[in-house]
């Protein structure tokens, strides 16, 4: 977002949030201003007890101590002033910066730097093929025309799945490669801890989101900021899972904050008769054969830690050695990150015809969506109604994530092997199985290929019903042996322990947690139930 627009947005946020605080305080049961200040103070002091690594801890501590002292001696006017001060501070915290010069450099350099980052250029590669091209590394596919058309017709909320810290630069490049203007983006503070990433994040329009800040006032400010940027016609990028998915599965429980901001912005524009066009939500899936931080993520998932909280402990994405290993794997394995764009939906969850920008019902009949928000003939906000609308949009988005997920051969093999082992050790609960592993028994290549083939066929049936996408190559060709080969190559090289290895005619799992993590990507398609007899048969055959 251009700095002039950003400043305008922040001034508007301050005015609106303060006005909202004053308005709600006038009705019986509303929070008086001193209560709002106290409540925010409570949340901040609580955060500061645990957030001692924060570089701004000292400064924050001073600020909030000052608020506490002043609050005790303030009259009504004084409380009002304190509230303004808090709102202004939050606004200052979240503001990003947009440097046109850096953007110009970044757009020229990024296509070269990003593949180098992702591919960790090896001398072998430089000699054989020269500098890597980014399109060798990231494949943009799906309904690309649709997102481009929507960006021309109105404002786009791009909503990708989220598995890795690499998602942000990958999406940043994708947006640029599609010829779209820079998107406004709320980035978690973890992305600002990496110095290189931070430089780009700070100066390319990203605004800062501190997930440890739980004060309702802070959340209101963030949401209002997003609302105003959308009202101004700024495209937004938003990860609906809120944080990287720990389990490896496609996210189905979404945080709906920015989706509701989209609806609110659209109603505001209708009320103010501002013709900024419609708001379109474009689902997008990011598909990796190997996930940079998978070891930490699944560990966190299993320990029930950091479910939705931002984890401050550095993970693999900050360990240079790991980064390089991950990157060279991408290159050596000719492994592409697949960014798949889905069909747009409106803020009510209805499908949109990208050519006309019209919303459609399930039978393809056009819908006049303005009518959804009319009260006595005028567009109005009704928060309870709008929350249900956003919930519906969230459900449609979650369904789109499943539909536009590109299943990769590595995931199909991980899923097949994991479930054979699960069937073999029925007596063990999941956590015991993950701890004890398969006790070195392994599965014969023939059995694994048979199960992988059955998985592959079940995936094909779903692909024909338009319920998911399949990666071109061995998976779409139903070549189980080639799928296994690809999985062995991918899983054998990057992780601390190879996920699976082949010894003779048997395949062994060396890291059950990661096998579970990668196989989880096929959760939510009902494959477990359908293929249960196949898994059981393979487990029995193995036992014999």
């Amino acid at each position, binding site marked *: 977002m251009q700095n002039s627009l950003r400043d305008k947005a922040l001034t508007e946020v301050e005015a609106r949030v303060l006005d909202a605080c004053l308005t709600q305080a006038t009705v019986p049961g509303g929070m008086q201003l001193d209560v709002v200040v106290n409540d925010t103070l409570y949340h901040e002091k609580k955060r500061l007890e645990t957030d001692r690594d924060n570089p701004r801890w000292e400064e924050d501590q001073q600020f909030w101590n000052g608020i506490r002292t002043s609050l005790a001696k303030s009259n009504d006017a004084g409380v009002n002033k304190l509230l303004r001060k808090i709102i202004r501070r939050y606004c200052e915290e979240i503001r990003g910066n947009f440097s046109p010069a850096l953007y110009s450099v970044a757009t020229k350099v990024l296509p070269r730097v990003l593949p180098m980052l992702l591919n960790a250029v090896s001398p072998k590669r430089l000699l054989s093929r020269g500098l890597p091209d980014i399109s060798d590394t990231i494949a943009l596919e799906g309904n690309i025309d649709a997102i481009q058309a929507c960006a021309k017709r109105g404002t786009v909320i791009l909503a990708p799945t989220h598995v890795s810290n690499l998602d942000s630069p990958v999406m940043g490049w994708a947006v640029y490669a599609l010829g779209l203007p820079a998107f406004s983006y709320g980035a978690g503070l973890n992305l600002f801890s990496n110095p290189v990433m931070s430089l780009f994040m700070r100066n390319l329009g990203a605004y800062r989101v501190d997930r440890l800040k739980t004060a309702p006032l802070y959340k209101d400010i963030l949401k209002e900021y997003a609302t105003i940027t959308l009202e101004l016609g700024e495209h937004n990028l938003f990860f609906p899972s809120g944080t990287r998915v720990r389990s490896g599965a496609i996210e189905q429980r979404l945080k709906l904050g920015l989706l509701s901001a989209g609806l609110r912005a659209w109603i505001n524009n209708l009320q103010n008769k501002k013709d900024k066009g419609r708001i379109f939500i474009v689902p997008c899936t990011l598909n990796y054969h190997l996930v940079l931080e998978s070891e930490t993520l699944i560990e966190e998932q299993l320990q029930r830690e950091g479910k939705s909280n931002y984890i401050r402990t550095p993970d693999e994405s900050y360990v240079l050695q790991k980064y390089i290993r991950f990157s060279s794997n991408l290159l050596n394995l000719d492994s592409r990150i697949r960014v798949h764009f889905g069909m747009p939906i409106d803020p009510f969850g209805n499908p949109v015809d990208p050519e006309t920008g019209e919303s459609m*019902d399930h039978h393809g*009949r056009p*819908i*006049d969506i*303005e*009518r959804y928000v009319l009260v006595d003939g005028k567009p109005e906000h009704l928060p309870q*109604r709008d929350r249900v609308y956003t919930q*519906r949009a969230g459900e449609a988005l979650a369904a789109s994530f499943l539909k536009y997920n590109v299943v990769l051969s590595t995931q199909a093999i991980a899923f097949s092997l994991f479930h054979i082992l699960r069937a073999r050790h029925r007596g063990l609960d999941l956590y015991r199985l993950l701890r004890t592993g398969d006790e070195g028994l392994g599965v014969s290549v023939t059995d694994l290929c048979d199960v992988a083939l059955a998985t592959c066929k079940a995936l094909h049936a779903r692909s024909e019903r338009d319920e998911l996408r399949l990666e071109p190559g061995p998976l779409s060709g139903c070549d189980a042996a080639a799928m296994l080969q690809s999985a062995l190559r991918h899983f054998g090289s990057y992780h601390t322990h190879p996920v699976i290895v082949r010894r003779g005619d048997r395949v062994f799992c060396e890291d059950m947690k990661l096998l579970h993590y990668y196989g989880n990507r096929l959760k939510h398609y009902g494959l477990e139930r359908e293929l249960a007899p196949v898994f059981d048969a393979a487990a029995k055959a193995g036992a014999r």
Partner: protein
Amino acid sequence: MSTTQPQKRAAVFGGGSWGTALAHLMALAGADVRLWLRNEDRVAEINTAHTNTRYLRDRQIHPGVVATTDFAEVATFAEVIVVAIPSSEMRAVAFQLGQHVRGDQILLSATKGFETENLTRMSEILRSETCCLKVGAISGPNLADEVMDNKPAATVIASAFDEVVAKGASLLAGPTLRVYGNHDVVGVEVHGALKNIIAIAAGVCAGLDLGTNSLAMLLTRGLAEVSRFAEVLGADRITALGLAGLGDLMATCSSPLSRNNTLGRKLASGMSVAEAQADSVKVAEGVNTTYAAHLHAKRLGVDMPIVRAVHALLFEGHSTREVLTDLMSRANRFEHTEVEIDVPRLIEGSVVESALNIRAFDGRRRS
């Protein structure tokens, strides 16, 4: 200077007993009501004599109810549309509605049933066949004849949207009808549909003169299995204890005015299913619902002995006596957990205690 309130408007699809009663109630509460039905003779009768003798005998319908066969006129007449047609026709009518309605309209289903194949609820059909998002359901202990006789009653309007509940209540609530809102659409619809199965069983029970104890057993165990099924589909447990759960069940199972209950009585008197159905002009939704619930209970892993029994009676040619014997000879169970009483129980977390329990059980059996 006097200001006049704009006239409230409502539209009803379906001129059966419940559709007509709802139209009458809304007219009674001051709304201008359009009622759509296919039969021209009945349209003429409602508009001239203000009766619907086929379904409601000589009960007088409020003159504010105007019947018509013009589908488009009714679909575009009001902001709130109530749909009260048999479940088997719901999808076709909803699709036709989809050609006319707009996003600001509210659709309320007053039909209690499922679409057999996928167990689709009626409000889900309205949602999927039209552009309307603001949908809901009306359910509760509301026997149409009693409502037409202006006897006090209460009903539930269920919707995720407060706006739907509020607008529905403003149209329906009156001196003889109280309206309660509920956000648990799944629970309200599932209980409303499944209670019809229990009502058939209750009719059999009454027809065979099995007494009050039997009826009480049927009602409570029926409610238990219906609520288990509803919960699996995503309903809130507490809905079972409300008007749309227990309330509706009590009304339907104890009143001879209930069409499903009546069907059960006829079966008990020795009529075949076909004869009993042909003997009534009103559709007993419980028959289709029994088929659907029986079909899906196994898939969902829900034990439904009463549904199985009614299914055996309706679709498998079993006699009432056989069905009753089967039900009564089931193993004794713990009331809440459904665990059988006469089997050794494993003690969670202790193999030793489990073994002790098994040995004690064996000892008891031997002695």
